[in-house]
């Protein structure tokens, strides 16, 4: 398997504060990888650095092309969808308009219409509510909308920032099942940042653990799940 995304010595800064201290990792094509870590470890920053939303140094390559210096919208156009923390719902627009916005970089109208239907199959609750103002959806529905909207880009790689945040356990499980299905059936490579380590490790094939801006552990999801330290700090048993 070839590496789809290669990150080398990534350092990111918020003004004077350095948030990442030389992060290196890679994602294989078709994989589902999770990035675990406590609050403030730099998980969100890593995703933002890939999309060039924060100032960073180091080398990031996507399918052999360097991403540094590219604007966020150009990174997105290469096929990297980012589901931001807090879902980023366009609250005053309808569910369907949100989905159309996900496809704003695409020019094939018919394909967009077909993809919206496909999203409604993945997420039946969105079809039920397609004329409803997106801000009035529940947290779980908004998270599904955010995932569906990101898929409207027809991404090759999807970055998810804490999709389980603030959701009921049942909904999280449903969402993760759908993510697994998207990964297997639509061949979308997924990088998911999570605090809910248990579920993320069940779903993923590979995992990285980061602490204060550095990768401290990496391996297959099973290995990480069985690691004594990880179990103590993140899984709580």
């Amino acid at each position, binding site marked *: 398997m070839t590496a789809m995304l290669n990150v080398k010595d990534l350092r990111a800064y918020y003004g004077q504060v350095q948030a990442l201290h030389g992060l290196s990792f890679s994602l294989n094509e078709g994989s589902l990888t999770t990035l675990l870590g406590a609050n403030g470890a730099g998980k969100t920053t890593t995703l933002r650095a890939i*999309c060039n*939303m924060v100032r960073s140094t180091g080398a990031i390559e996507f399918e052999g092309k360097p991403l540094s210096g590219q*604007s*966020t*919208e150009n990174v*997105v*156009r290469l096929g990297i*969808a*980012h*589901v*931001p923390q807090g*879902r*980023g*719902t*366009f*609250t*005053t*627009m*309808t569910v369907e*308009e949100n989905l*159309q*916005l*996900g496809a*704003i*970089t695409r020019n094939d109208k018919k394909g967009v219409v077909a993809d919206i239907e496909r999203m409604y199959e993945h997420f*039946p*609750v969105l079809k*039920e*509510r397609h*004329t*409803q*103002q*997106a801000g*009035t959806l*529940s947290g*779980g*529905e908004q998270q599904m909308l*955010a995932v569906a*909207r*990101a898929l409207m*880009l027809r991404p090759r790689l999807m970055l998810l920032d804490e999709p389980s945040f603030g959701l009921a356990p*049942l*909904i999280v499980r*449903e969402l993760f099942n759908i993510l697994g299905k998207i990964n297997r059936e639509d061949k979308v490579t997924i990088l998911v940042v999570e605090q809910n380590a248990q579920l993320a490790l069940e779903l993923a094939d590979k995992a990285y653990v980061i602490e204060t801006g550095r990768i401290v552990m990496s391996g297959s999801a099973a290995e990480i799940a069985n690691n004594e330290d990880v179990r103590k700090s993140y899984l709580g048993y």
Partner: protein
Amino acid sequence: MSAVEEVTSEAPAVEAVPKRAMTLGYGTSLVVLGLLIIAPMFLKNFFVFQMTMLLIYALAVLALNILTGGSGQFSLGQSAFYAVGAYTSAILMEHMGVNYALTLPIAGIICFGFGFLFGQPALRLSGIYLALATFALAVAMPQLLKLGFFEHWTGGVQGLVVTKPDAPFGLPISQDRWLYYFTLVIAIGIYIASVNLLRSRSGRAFMAIRDNEIAASAMGVDVALYKTLAFGVSAGITGVAGGLGAIAVQFVAPDGYTITLAISLFLGMVVGGVGWLPGSIVGSAFIIFVPNIAEHISKGLSGAVFGVLLFLVIFLVPHGARQVAIVAQQLIGKLKK
């Protein structure tokens, strides 16, 4: 899965304001249009002039509505764009003898460029900071227009007198009526174009930025481009309104375009309903007629009376004319049943 579905399907479905609701219904639009066409035939010239100003300010409010209601950027500097449009028209007409109708697209284009350029530094600002930066622009503009350097063109403090155009083709209507219908045609054209703009892909990009800038850029929206574009479009329309205003008032002077005008336009937008384009004309009516009404109630305290009236409007209908329209629509719907 099934359990989740059961729970969610029981929740009451709240319908969003559909896209159509950004405009008026077909029937209502025709009624309003009919009134705007017929009313001036029965009015005295002075009232026709006031209706012309109503349309002109409505255009300026509409322009601000595209910027704030559409892309979510504040501006207290619309008076500066209005002034540039007014002076462009006045200078072209009086110094270069350009036909009044031709000066308007030129004013629009110049203001579009001006707004687009101003939008570049404004990119780094948002919310209250952007309001302050535009405020500075509005404060600076009258003084810039007074500069001795431009005096040959602008007439300095004295300003410029503009000749009122006659009705063409020997039409037997007064200058005021002709100018009214001329303005009406332009206003309708710009209104239709604006509605279509907000429904287009660009409009969707504007609204995405307004709702959530980070998510918009994560969807591949070129945030910088669309934000400056919104500024450009807004300034361009304001410039056309300014040009029309110069022709209607027959006079441009620096002190006609102070921060007070910018605040009035802002008021007009809020009273009309932020993001609701047809509200622009209601907002315009508010800023033109309510000060007059206030003066009728009390000459010495007209400002205070205006304040009280404004307070009442904001308190009773915080979403402006849009809210009134929605309530009215629901009432009509109930009566029909």
